[in-house]
């Protein structure tokens, strides 16, 4: 699997939809997906259509009695794109936390050289003198 960003599933709503569909269920019903993703009916309809047009999501419509029901599933192409995108995101997260560590280290270094090191030296001297 190659880690690469996918502009289609980059927006967080579409990432949520794909991520939930990839979680392990074969098909997920409209209401279950909407509730888990925490989005409105119209947003789910709009975004799922974009994903369906791209071939990432398969949509099956049916009815139970008079109630229309819509089921979604992630296609193999959608899964590949999602896995690549998630791997890229994980790399990004790692890079961001790595650079944050560097910044902290850089901020700590002058402080240590000016304040901590002389104090440590004093302490050591104190121990020797005792």
């Amino acid at each position, binding site marked *: 699997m190659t880690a690469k960003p996918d502009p289609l599933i980059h*927006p967080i709503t579409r990432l949520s939809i794909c991520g939930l569909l990839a*979680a392990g269920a074969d098909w997920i019903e409209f209401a279950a997906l909407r509730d888990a993703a925490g989005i409105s009916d119209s947003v789910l309809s709009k975004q799922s259509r974009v994903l369906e047009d791209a071939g990432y999501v398969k949509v099956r419509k049916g009815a139970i009695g008079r109630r229309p029901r819509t089921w979604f599933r992630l296609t193999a192409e959608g899964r590949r794109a999602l896995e690549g995108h998630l791997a890229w995101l994980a790399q990004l997260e790692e890079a961001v936390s790595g650079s944050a560590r560097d910044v902290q280290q850089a901020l700590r270094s002058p402080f240590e050289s000016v304040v901590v090191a002389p104090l440590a030296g004093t302490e050591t001297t104190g121990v020797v003198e005792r």
Partner: protein
Amino acid sequence: MRDVARDPAALELLRVQRSQLADRMRPPWWYLTGAAIGWALVFACPFGSRYLPHADYWTIVVAALAVACLLQLGLDRATGMKVGPRPLRVLRDGIFYYRPGRPALIAMLVVSLAATVTEASLIRRGLLVAAIVVAALAVVAEMAGQQARLRGIRQELRAGGGAA
């Protein structure tokens, strides 16, 4: 629309959403009751094959299968998720991964085979009470296995099914 790259909590949000989805995979009371009835019918088959005419025996088998299908349909509707038959392992990136519910499923198969054979053997020797006790224990064991299997499915949903 919010952008993932500018939202450092995006992956964490996805984990929370998957956890919410996994929480939906909790069977309602009628599913567990129906499953117990279904398993009781399965373990009644050795008695049926011995004491019932041929046609009645097959009625039990068909009834058990019908109960299983109806329960699965009901669970799909209640949870909003179709999980379907699951292979014991999946191939990802050239490596086989064992699924979380695998030990429970294997245990359920072993228990059903062992209990059916033991029951048939006990019935042949005329030990009816012992056979009924074995059937009852097998139903309890199968129900525990079913719960463990559903826990495995929830665990897989939380983990993201291998994606991330």
